[in-house]
């Protein structure tokens, strides 16, 4: 089958690619995949635990939870499902749909291999992107797996990608996180123990199963060796997904993508944090809150606070509307940043007060992440705040930070 790509994704690597190996000519069908990676070895649950512990593998969806701890929390007698979260609801991230579209067999190897080791009844793949869903469905047709694999489509909304929201969608429920904070490893799919992680985590597990911990650890930092996928966006000449060793200097990534080497950088996406400068930062979890691996260069030409205000409006629109402090708090912050932009000092004071009232007061991390993004903007763009309070910064809002429209 041929997959038509409207926007061919740019994929590159710094150092030797692992997840993106053999993909330069496009999507890897089963034959091409086996030629590049070889067969997935069948490993036991104990071996997966040992490997994940040895290399300190963390989930690559954003929360960065250690995979070994997730495995240790599952009952020995078998689990309900292994869930591949491919909803990729962070609007700047492209790595997961790229893996699902171009390397579906690597992701499926990781998921099906682990499902067999954990005695899971099925593998569920939750996908939003239509091209990615088509690729993964085509890949399943090519394979013979011991565990049945099903693909489900998820809506494109920020909180719809949250782990428990994905489980709710898979059960036919609403695409919102439930009010009780329970762990999927205890009460996941149909209230039964479930291993859920991000697409890249499963691709890393497939590579780890083949390489073993020693070979896997031959690159990257010692705390979490190996490689990572980054999506680079914003004021860069060559945006796209880059595979790098963990701990790569941020400046190297920016130079590689053709970004200005100075100036503010957003790390971790719209639930992430602004850094005033890229120098001296090494990109490794958990020291740097990489989120889903997003790096955005702002560039010198746009109005930073105007960009942040646009994103704030989008974040407020993405609240599931379930929790009062998130609904009212994110809306109030949009208003505060708007007044701050037009030079009203009360906007600045109100923003600070509201930033204290939003975190930790919702069913999911949307209020926390939104507040983290906005609080770091006030801190890093202090000079811009003063300029706006004195009449304006004199720059237009160029839309360097993309805000998804209807087609997202």
């Amino acid at each position, binding site marked *: 089958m041929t997959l038509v790509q409207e926007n061919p994704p740019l994929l590159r690597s710094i150092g030797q690619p692992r997840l993106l190996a053999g993909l330069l000519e496009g999507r890897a069908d089963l034959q091409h995949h086996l030629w590049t990676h070889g067969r997935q070895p069948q490993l036991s649950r104990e071996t997966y635990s040992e490997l994940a512990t040895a290399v300190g593998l963390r989930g690559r969806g954003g929360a960065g939870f250690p995979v070994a701890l997730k495995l240790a929390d599952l009952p020995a007698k078998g689990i309900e499902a292994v869930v591949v979260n491919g909803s990729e609801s962070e609007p700047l991230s492209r790595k997961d749909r790229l893996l699902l579209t171009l390397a579906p067999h690597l992701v499926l190897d990781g998921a099906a291999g682990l499902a067999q080791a954990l005695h899971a009844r099925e593998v569920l793949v939750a996908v939003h992107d239509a091209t990615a869903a088509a690729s993964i469905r085509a890949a399943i047709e090519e394979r013979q797996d011991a565990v049945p694999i099903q693909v489900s489509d998820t809506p494109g909304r920020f909180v719809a990608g949250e782990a428990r929201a994905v489980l709710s969608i898979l059960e036919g429920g609403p695409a*919102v*996180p*439930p*009010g*009780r904070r329970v762990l999927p490893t205890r009460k996941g799919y149909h209230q039964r123990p479930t291993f859920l992680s991000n697409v890249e985590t499963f691709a890393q597990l497939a590579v780890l199963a083949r390489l073993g911990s020693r070979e896997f650890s031959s690159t990257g930092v010692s705390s979490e060796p190996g490689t990572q996928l980054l999506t680079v966006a914003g004021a860069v000449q060559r945006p796209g997904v880059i595979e790098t060793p963990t701990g790569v200097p941020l400046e190297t990534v920016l130079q590689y993508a053709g970004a200005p080497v100075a100036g503010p950088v957003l790390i971790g996406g719209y639930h992430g944090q602004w850094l005033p400068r890229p120098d001296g930062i090494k990109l490794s979890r958990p020291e740097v809150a990489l989120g889903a691996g997003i790096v955005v260069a702002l560039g010198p030409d746009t109005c930073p606070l105007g960009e942040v205000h646009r994103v704030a409006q989008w974040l407020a629109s993405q609240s599931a509307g*379930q*929790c*009062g*402090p*998130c609904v*009212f*708090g994110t809306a109030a912050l949009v208003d505060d940043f708007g007044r701050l932009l037009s030079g009203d000092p009360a906007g600045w004071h109100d923003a600070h007060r509201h930033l204290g*009232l939003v975190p930790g*007061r*919702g*069913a999911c991390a949307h209020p926390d992440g939104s507040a983290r993004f906005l609080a770091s903007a006030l801190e890093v763009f202090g000079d811009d705040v003063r300029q706006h309070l004195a009449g304006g910064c004199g720059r237009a809002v160029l839309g360097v930070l993309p805000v998804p429209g209807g087609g997202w």
Partner: protein
Amino acid sequence: MVKKLEIDWTRCDGHGLCATLLGDDVVLDEWGFPVLDGRPVTPGELTNARRAVLACPALALRLGEV
């Protein structure tokens, strides 16, 4: 077992009874939603805390384990 007050934010509608009944530990924000102080409920406060949990019209207030 040490307990503390928890809110199911998907249920809370900001009725505010919790702040009336537990004025020392719960205040309301400017939108009328409760702000908890987050400390554990002492054995002496447990009866009042249970009363507030039962009084919540939205069944949003709970006593959870610390």
